[in-house]
């Protein structure tokens, strides 16, 4: 019975996922095509201006830009199903390959940033609960609010100004030295500033949430009971209170993926870090449709997946969220 329900739930979620991706692809496809601007320019560069009308026509025919949007979408879908997402107009190679060459940089920045943010937020939140109302807690709260209010790109700029321009300690752009081998040390040095920008900007938001949740939790009666039983402060906080906060923290982590992803993209653009964010920014600017499409779909897929994950976590924590379970408990039911 229970297993059956789980399979059912997973099946339903897969369905939602596919439908969402499908709708997302339609949406992005049409919106991107509505944009003014000349995709030929991305493909041919400056040569476009010297093209004759016939040459233009032929080029558009070849790239399939001449058909109605619906037909173009149908063709894209057909190819995509076969694993062919088209050719990037700018890079003149399959978009999968373009993305493949960049995706590890973004994963490194975003993934590591994600872990640092949530690990740090947890520690900071618990620490603030521990110190509640004392000067250290108040100081952290104030500083945190300020770091949260600073726009991400400006924080990145200031970091460059201070550490690259003034102090000349750290590189200001790229993922590794030009012409360098891309050794681990080299990469780490290039990662410091972007990572700082991403982490500092998001850290407090989540730490504050943890702090609030924990503060609510320590006002529950069971904490008093635990204290009466003679348990130590550390044990109550870290074992009892934290256990009740963690599940909702997990779902919070899943929901916050789009925020952190968006933040990573901005920071990448400021540091000219060769990742998906920079790529997206370029493709939007130069109407590189196929590339744009795949980036949006991939980002969307990650986000939808994490949303579904959050839903799943919530359902696992709180059975009330499953509507059928609620009905079963209701007694006055006749069928």
């Amino acid at each position: 019975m229970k297993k059956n329900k789980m399979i059912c739930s997973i099946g339903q979620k897969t369905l939602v996922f596919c439908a969402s991706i499908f709708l997302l692809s339609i949406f992005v496809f049409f919106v991107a095509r509505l944009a003014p601007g000349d995709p030929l320019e991305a493909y041919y560069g400056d040569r476009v201006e010297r093209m004759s009308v016939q040459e233009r026509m032929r080029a558009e025919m070849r790239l399939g830009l001449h058909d109605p949007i619906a037909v173009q979408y149908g063709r894209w879908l057909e190819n995509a199903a076969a694993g062919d997402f088209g050719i990037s107009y700018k890079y003149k190679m399959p978009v999968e390959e373009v993305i493949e060459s960049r995706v590890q940089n973004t994963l490194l920045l975003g993934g590591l940033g994600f872990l640092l943010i949530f690990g740090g937020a947890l520690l900071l939140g618990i620490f603030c609960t521990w110190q509640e109302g004392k000067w250290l807690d108040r100081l952290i709260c104030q500083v945190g609010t300020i770091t949260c209010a600073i726009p991400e790109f400006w924080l990145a700029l200031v970091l460059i100004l201070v550490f690259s321009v003034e102090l000349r300690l750290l590189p200001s752009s790229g993922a590794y030295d030009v012409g360098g081998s891309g050794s681990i040390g080299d990469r780490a040095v290039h990662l410091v500033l972007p990572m700082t920008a991403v982490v500092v900007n998001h850290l407090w938001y989540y730490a504050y949430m943890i702090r609030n949740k924990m503060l609510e939790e320590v006002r529950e009666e069971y904490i008093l009971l635990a204290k009466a039983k003679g348990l130590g402060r550390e044990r109550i906080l870290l074992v009892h209170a934290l256990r009740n906060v963690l599940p909702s923290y997990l779902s919070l982590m899943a929901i916050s993926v789009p925020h952190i992803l968006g933040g990573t993209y901005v920071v990448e653009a400021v540091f000219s870090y060769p990742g998906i964010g920079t790529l997206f920014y370029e493709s939007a600017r130069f109407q590189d449709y196929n590339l744009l499409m795949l980036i949006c779909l991939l980002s969307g897929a990650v986000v939808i997946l994490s949303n579904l994950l959050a839903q799943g976590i919530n359902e696992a924590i709180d059975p009330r969220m499953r509507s059928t379970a609620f009905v079963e408990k209701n007694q006055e039911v006749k069928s």
Partner: protein
Amino acid sequence: MNHSFEIVGIRAQEVKQIKQRRRYLSGLPWPALLVLAIMILGCLAVPWLGVRDPAFMDMANYNRPPDMEFLFGTDTMGRDVFSCIWHGGRVSIFIGLAATVLSTFIAVVYGALSGMAPVWLDDLLMRLTEILLSIPSLLLVILLLACMGKPNVFSIALVIGLTSWLAIAKVVRTEVRQLAEADFIAAARIMGGGTFYILRKHLLPNFLASIMFMVVMNVRSAIVYESTLSFMGLGLPLSVISWGSMLSLSEKALLTDAWWIILIPGVFLATLLLSLTSIGNYLRKEVNRKESNL
């Protein structure tokens, strides 16, 4: 049948004036309100302040650090940063407010309709918002902005407004779903009140408090979006002065070590955002002030 009781409900009661005023005012985030007031007043009053024309490019004095003549220095194009700050603030704040008005309006209507709709339609509408929410909003803004052609103040406000209503709409929908169960909504329906009447008279006053925090935070994020977009060269062009477009000069400023071009607009921006954040936090429901059990 005899009347065995008398009606005793009728009696005048003394009007007790409870003096809550002082306590109410003392809780307000005064520093934030003060900063906000100064910024808005400064931006509104700038034509009468006698500052230089912000668009004038003084080729003799470009990239000058702050001194007595140019309080905040000049930028790489020879424009007076002090004057640009106040003129640019107008644009930034306008975009923040206009986008928020638009997004709040859409959110309230959409959320309320979804909340009052039959379950299948509600599910459909909410699925739609979830799909839209699944696109990182910056991607969405950039995508839509690309469709609008050459960006100007209004198209940016429009695009930001069109993309930032989702979260508020979800809250409105949840609140309306709860409120719609309440008897006073049923009472208004029995009286013959239409959907929009009920929304305006009964629902809005009841859920307004719970979205105020998000509305203020929306002003904040709209300003952030504008500056981020303009900074990346996707938003306002250099000729339209806003705090974001001023910051888009920072790449050049980094090369010439002109810190004031980066720091001054950024400090203003961050201060505005900080005061909006603390006002927002004030509006958010406080954590209970009970004694901790720990």
